[in-house]
């Protein structure tokens, strides 16, 4: 499995292909993905229809069908560290067209959850955006674009994100300066609290 | 389904030769594992199955009886399974009157190509029978060695009205 870790590193550095030791396939990982997604990974016969339809392939490090293959072969680390998980737009093209009726988008989602839980975030900015978004929902009960943008910029350090758009948006009153506070925002906040307290949320 | 430690129950199956018996064969050829409780009696057609056979099995202490024939319209003898369907449907309604739990008797249709389906049917029916447990018996002694009893059964005359 350590080969996995280094391989991913090498790969990032464009240094080498990675060699998978199939004998050390992490079958518990496969089982967990199947359990959390209620999908049968073995049903995938690698026709590539998901990759064929996926609009995000150009941005991926592993194509969807490769992710499916990596799961089949129990390459936990390679999967959870993959960039693709974070870049999947859940557009459902793969799920809709799979000849074996596998909910591929759901599997990507589940792997992303597991990656988060394992503390990976290969596409940091995506994670930060999601976190900022949820943070603003937790605070106000609804998404508050301006606040979320601010939070995102500070956290990601990308302070110039979409500054070019700000004027137009503001001018057209599309970015209200003050958030919509809803009465039930404590209720919403409690949802997050309880969630963080944990328990069985899988 | 019943692991080794679970005691087998007595389930009798009446299968038509052309579809269901073939389906059971297909299941075997494909190695579809099934509970071992079922004992299959082969008849040419589900239309040959006299309700008497089922009642006799149950009265003799069978815990369950499973009947299977060709799908309606697929009968090798054109319409045998239509007769079967009508007779067995009647029997199912009649059983409770005789004090027999109708859930201990089931009939279904399985074709020669449906090995998978046969596995499912057997597994489900066997599970049901095990949930119902052993059929109530009038005499615990009769739980004695099947073999010697069977020998006597063999020697004994069967009822005259069926020459």
């Amino acid at each position, binding site marked *: 499995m350590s080969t996995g870790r280094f391989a991913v590193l090498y790969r990032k550095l464009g240094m080498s292909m990675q060699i998978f030791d199939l004998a050390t396939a992490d079958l518990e990982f496969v089982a967990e993905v199947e359990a959390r997604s209620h999908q049968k990974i073995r049903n995938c016969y690698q026709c590539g229809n998901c990759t064929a339809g996926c609009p995000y392939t150009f941005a991926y490090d592993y194509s969807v069908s490769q992710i499916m293959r990596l799961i089949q072969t129990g390459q936990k680390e390679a999967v959870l560290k993959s960039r693709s998980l974070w870049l999947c*737009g859940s557009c459902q093209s793969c799920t809709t067209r799979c000849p074996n009726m596998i909910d591929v988008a759901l599997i990507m989602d589940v792997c992303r959850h597991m990656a988060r839980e394992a503390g990976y975030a290969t596409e940091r900015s995506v994670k930060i955006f999601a976190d900022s978004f949820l943070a603003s929902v937790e605070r106000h009960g609804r998404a508050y674009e301006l606040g979320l943008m601010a939070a995102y910029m500070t956290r990601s350090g990308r302070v110039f*994100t979409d500054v070019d758009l700000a004027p137009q948006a503001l001018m057209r009153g599309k970015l209200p300066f003050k958030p919509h506070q809803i009465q039930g925002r404590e209720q919403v906040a409690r949802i997050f609290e309880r969630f963080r307290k944990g328990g069985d949320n899988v | 389904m019943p692991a080794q430690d679970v005691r087998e129950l007595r389930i009798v199956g009446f299968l038509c030769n052309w579809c269901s018996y073939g389906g059971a064969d297909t299941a075997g050829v494909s190695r579809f594992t099934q509970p071992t409780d079922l004992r299959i009696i082969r008849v040419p057609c589900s239309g040959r199955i006299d309700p008497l056979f089922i009642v006799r099995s149950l009265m003799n202490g069978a815990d369950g009886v499973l009947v299977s024939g060709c799908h309606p319209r697929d009968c090798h003898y054109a319409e045998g399974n239509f007769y079967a369907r009508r007779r067995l449907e009647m029997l199912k309604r009649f059983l409770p009157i005789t004090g027999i739990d109708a859930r201990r008797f089931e009939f279904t249709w399985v074709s020669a190509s449906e090995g998978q389906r046969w596995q499912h049917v057997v597994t489900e029916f066997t599970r049901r029978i095990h949930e119902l447990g052993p059929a109530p018996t009038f005499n615990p002694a009769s739980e004695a060695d099947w073999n010697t009893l069977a020998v006597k059964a063999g020697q004994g005359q069967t009822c005259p009205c069926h020459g």
Partner: protein
Amino acid sequence: MFKIAYYPGCSGQGTSLEYDKSTRAVCKALDVELVDIPDWSCCGSSPAHTVNHVLSAALSARNLAQVEVMGMDKVTTPCPSCLTNLRTAAHKMEDPEFRTKANALLDVPCNGDVDAQSVLQVLAENVDPELIKSKVVRPLTGIKIACYYGCIMNRPPELMRFDHHENPMAMDNLMTALGAEVVPFALKVECCGASYGIPRNDIVMRLSGKLLDAGRDVGADAFVTACPLCQMNLDLRQGQINRALHEKFRIPVFYYTQLLGYALGLDRAVLGFEKLCVDPRLALGKIKQPAQAR
């Protein structure tokens, strides 16, 4: 009078004000009564379901619970993203085990037997096309329109249960009924880049760019869409796209409710054309005045 609970969605308060306004106006005009969910909260959008399904479901379920309190069993929303979350929540909560988990996060538990539908579906299935035709005072004759549905309004079909998953027609039919010429736009359900505009702008540039390009190829004067996110990517970011791809797109992107309202002769103020970033006047100019239309 058709009555249904209404979930505006956060973007309706901000980036897609005009969508919300025009939706309300159009529904009013077509005798569809929208009853706002009192004190509704965010459905969690995609960030939530990328973090955890129970959390995501709970955030949506809070609103479904409100609907149940209202004593209604149907809710409609203009936003496909909200729609997906609401439907997914309701669907997942059919599983009692999951429902308990989700309700454990909520103050007010939710049964989840609320059917969420897009406003488009409500209009398509509950308003007689003939009625719409009869109410048209400004037919859209002369304008060429590409209908873009976005990726999740109809997919996956097992969940969304509306229209066609590869070639949806609801907006096409509507626009045709209004007298517009609908061009054969092939990428109706292709993804625009969704919420990656901020974290991975390059993705949106490429995907939305492709859509604009395809629209131009088939000679569209304008896009109509039913999704705030799609609209934002195609409209607000069109300038960015032009810079990124060295293009000169100038294709306005309407919400279908805006053009519907326009055709029904509603007050321009409620239609909010001025909120569009790409100036729609050129496109609207193509529409022949009723006098000529006849």
